[in-house]
């Protein structure tokens, strides 16, 4: 089984010039934690995740968040949201994002996603966005591939 067999065949994406506020709104409406950023030709040029947005809004705080004594300055965060909200997604997206070819094996994709600690990744065919895959689908595909039929019941969401 390859990534193309289990991916979510959804093409929802952001333009390079989409504002951070619009990106937040789209992520909420589409119930997702990150979206690919594509250029006018439909090629993937980056990925904007919740973490990228947090990094844009609270750049200095993110590193301290694990510390118990960190007290977020809410007024300052609100000000930052207003300040960066109109900025384009391409200013904050991860440019060298992990992306898979649809023929990539599930085990390779799984290794890369866990090693780089990423939850979602775009799937491409000749550089063009054809879908998206997340850890949950990867895990399902991996179990489906490695357990005998009947041993465990794993519904696969999409088929080629």
């Amino acid at each position, binding site marked *: 089984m390859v990534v193309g067999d289990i991916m979510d*065949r*959804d*093409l*929802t994406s952001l*333009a390079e010039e989409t504002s951070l506020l619009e990106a937040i709104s*789209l992520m909420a409406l*589409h119930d997702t934690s990150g979206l690919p950023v594509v250029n*006018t030709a439909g090629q993937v040029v980056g990925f904007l995740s919740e973490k990228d947005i947090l990094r844009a809004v609270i750049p200095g705080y993110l590193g301290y968040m694990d510390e118990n004594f960190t007290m977020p300055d809410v007024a300052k965060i609100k000000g930052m949201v207003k300040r960066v909200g109109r900025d384009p997604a391409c200013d904050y997206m991860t440019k060298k994002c992990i992306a898979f070819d649809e023929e990539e094996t599930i085990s390779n994709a799984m290794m890369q996603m866990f090693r780089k600690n990423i939850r979602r990744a775009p799937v491409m065919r000749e550089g063009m966005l054809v*879908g998206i895959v997340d850890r949950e689908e990867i895990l399902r595909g991996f179990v489906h591939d490695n357990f005998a039929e009947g041993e465990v019941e794993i519904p696969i969401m*999409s088929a080629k």
Partner: protein
Amino acid sequence: MIVTITPNPAMDESYTTDEFRPGRWYRARSVVRSPGGRGVNVSIILKQLGYNSVSTGFLAGHTGRYIRDELLFRGITTNFVNIKGENRTNTFIRDDSGGIETAVTEEGPTVSSDARERFFWNLERIMPRVAAVHMGGALPPGVPDTFYRDVVDIVKRKNVPVYVDASGAALDLAIEALPTVVKIDQRFVSSIRNVTLSTLDHIMEIAKRIFDEGVDWIIASYFNKSNVFCTTKGFYLAEAKLETPVTYRAASDALIAGMIVAREERMGIEDTMRFGMSCVIQTVSCPQKGLPSRAAVESTLGDVTIQKI
């Protein structure tokens, strides 16, 4: 890629009862749920015929999630714009004793101007990769009657064939932009440009007028079993032999899906009509959404009679 546009998708709920009369309570003998709406149906049937498509439009709420998940399960690519509210549920009740079907449909969620803008942005972005575009069905609140015309304009600029299956003012306006194929479903269109579609002569009169304006194919349903085709080679009346029809709900969508496949495979005019009509035969006889397989469609090609009129 083939793109289908469903501005107002739905969850189709089909109940079968032994009998059905208004004002009484019934327990359904069976319930079949499926994602619906013109473009969604075309995407499903295209997949059953072995063709991938991108299903687009506006999705909202739990019903929207159901529609997307079902398309995902069927391996169909999606590029919907998610909006607030709830997609509609279309309820169909089939009365087995009388063999008749009753339908109740909803209006659908309101589409904002931002969502419409996003839809057009999505469409422009995928257009360089598109081989054909199909759009159809009722428009939800917030979507103006000019919607289909605007889409036809965008698609025609890229020299891509575009199929329209709509009704009312939205259809009239779309025709102005000269789509490649126009489907007129008599169940929903009683008149067009002030010509009542009551007789074969009237259908041919209006089809000829639209053809002269520059539309390549005009197809009008004619009773349940037949379609009138107006083509570059003249008028044809195609009739399907229907033995045990279950539902006519997706018949129009099956015809269009068949025609899209025929065009992709460069079939001639008569073969295109025959293939499309055979898709209708299989779809109206299938209790599930769409048709059983391409092989089934090919097995009933001989059950279509075509005559030049």
